């Protein structure tokens, strides 16, 4: 188990170092100098532009040798200094991101957990039952093939505009201020329903199909046949099959995290939900590179933490990893 965790941790640390390096490298070595773009947009005269340029270079710490910049970048990170946003000048990037993250979690955590449990149970239910299998499986394939943003657009249009049931823009009514009142929480929940549903439905399809296939595979395994031969009731065999089939689904959750995060970002864009996806869109449209870099790092760190949580769960669920019988999950 120690080896399992140390290996995983090594991978995560290397990933983080790589991500930070990429985050640092890209603005410096991509064609097109962000500072120059900013100055070009200001539309200054040639001489004053030159002056502003050198001033900016100094302000952003770009006038020191390249290796020093890299070290400074790391030092700043450990101080929680992600720079200052250009879009919402002069608010620090970290503060803007911290304001957005709760909305991300509010949407993402329930969507992932509920779709995972519901999808697994439905999939297990559908396996090897002709009628259910013929209805749920095709539905599952269509759902997992749906682009997140399109389902979001459809829901916003159908339930938000054609039939006026749910609001489809923002995280709460624009007339309200965030506070701990029932009115605000009610509004928050109302705005939460549609983005949650579009995330939930797409993921649900994927989990249901995965589980259905795994159950069929497990029911073909020797231990299932042995139990059947002993005369065990069907439900008992299925319960054992389910417990084994859940393990690849946990690994699958870790593998799917990247896709899920991507889906979350575009869903937030569709619903103007004030999470990181919305911030990224604003950052791109306003050429706010500091905010963009900050969002990038935050998402990577979040995904790494989630991966680690899944690893811990896996160890808790699968006794073989605890006994050190399998090195990899």
């Amino acid at each position, binding site marked *: 188990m120690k080896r399992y965790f140390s290996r995983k941790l090594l991978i995560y640390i290397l990933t983080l170092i790589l991500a930070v390096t990429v985050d640092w490298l890209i*603005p410096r070595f991509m*064609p097109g100098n962000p500072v120059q773009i900013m100055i070009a947009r200001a539309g200054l005269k040639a001489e004053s532009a030159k002056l502003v340029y050198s001033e900016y270079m100094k302000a952003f710490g770009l006038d020191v040798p390249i290796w020093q910049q890299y070290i400074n970048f790391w030092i700043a990170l450990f101080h929680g200094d992600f720079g200052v946003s250009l879009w919402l000048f002069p608010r620090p990037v970290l503060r803007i991101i911290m304001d957005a993250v709760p909305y991300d979690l509010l949407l993402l955590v329930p969507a992932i957990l509920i779709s995972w449990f519901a999808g697994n149970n439905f999939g297990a239910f559908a396996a090897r039952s002709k009628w259910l299998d013929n209805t749920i499986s095709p539905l599952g394939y269509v759902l997992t093939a749906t682009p997140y943003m399109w389902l979001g657009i459809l829901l916003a249009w159908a339930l938000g*505009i054609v039939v006026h049931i749910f609001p489809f823009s923002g995280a709460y009514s624009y007339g309200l201020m965030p506070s701990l009142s029932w009115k605000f929480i009610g509004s928050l929940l109302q705005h939460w329903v549609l983005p949650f549903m579009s995330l939930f439905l797409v993921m649900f399809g994927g989990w249901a199909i995965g589980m259905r296939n795994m159950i069929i595979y497990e029911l073909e395994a020797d231990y299932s046949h042995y139990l059947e031969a002993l005369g065990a009731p069907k439900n008992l065999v299925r319960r054992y099959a389910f417990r084994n089939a859940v393990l690849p689904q946990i690994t699958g959750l870790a593998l799917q995290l*990247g896709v899920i*995060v991507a889906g979350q*970002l575009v869903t937030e864009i569709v619903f103007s939900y004030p999470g990181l996806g919305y911030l*990224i869109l604003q950052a791109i449209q306003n050429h706010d590179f500091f905010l963009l870099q900050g969002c990038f790092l935050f998402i990577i760190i979040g*995904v790494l933490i989630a991966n680690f949580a899944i690893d811990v769960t896996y160890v808790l669920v699968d006794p073989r990893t605890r006994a050190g019988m399998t090195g990899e999950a």
Partner: protein
Amino acid sequence: MQQLKKKNEMLYFAMRNTKLRIGVIIVLIFVILAIIGPYITHYKPRDYVAPGPQPPSSEFWFGTTSFGEDVFSQFVSGLRATFIVGILGGGMGTLIGVLVGFTAGYRGGWLDETLNMLTNIVLVVPSLVVLIIIAAYLEVRGFLFESVFIGCFAWPWVARAIRAQTFSLRTRDFVDLARLSGMKPLKIIITEIAPNMMSYLLLVFILQFGGAILTAATLDFIGLGPTNTVSLGLMMNNAVIYGALLLGMWWWFIPPGLAITIVVGALYITNVGLDEVFNPRLREM
């Protein structure tokens, strides 16, 4: 003779498999539409053809956008772009995955350790977020660039699966025999190991194809797609930005998403069908 008979058997099951038939037919319909579509419209995707938003009519099959562009023309050229991204991006992802998987699985040792570490790192990284940050810094983005980069981040699970299979195959007797007879490693991989995985490689490519289409659509929707072509994701992006939802212009945002859903869904169903053809244990009798 034996080989021929086996092929016929595969073909027999392939023709009889309903999932495979449905999937392939749907994909083919869209491929044909993507190929001949641009020739049956009279307009270019970005041309001004008629004033203001118009609902679908006999003149404009899918209606027009707020800017008076023909949605059907945009749709078919977007469909074409979608398939090309799928082939290039999916092909790239499969190719890198196969190369890494074979090398790591066959060579073993420190090379395997290194490649495995690399695979695990790229596996953890959310690829779309990396694509966003790369694309955001480029003022001009090409079509080829997008496809290749999508492939560059999609390969890890392929490499993992291929590595595991190569691992189990390389200790088999026939591989040992080939090695004893002095065959070069590359030739062993190509002539002894790869043929045992051909069916699997086809399945992998189909999944990569579908994945690349979805990733490209997401990237285009954020507004970071190719700057010089129309794509289905960009159509949805424009529809949302220019208020198609509030104006009730359903003909603008429904076709692109629906096409992606149907094509990718059909690919997945094809994949399941093919799996049943190749794997006798999964066949429904």
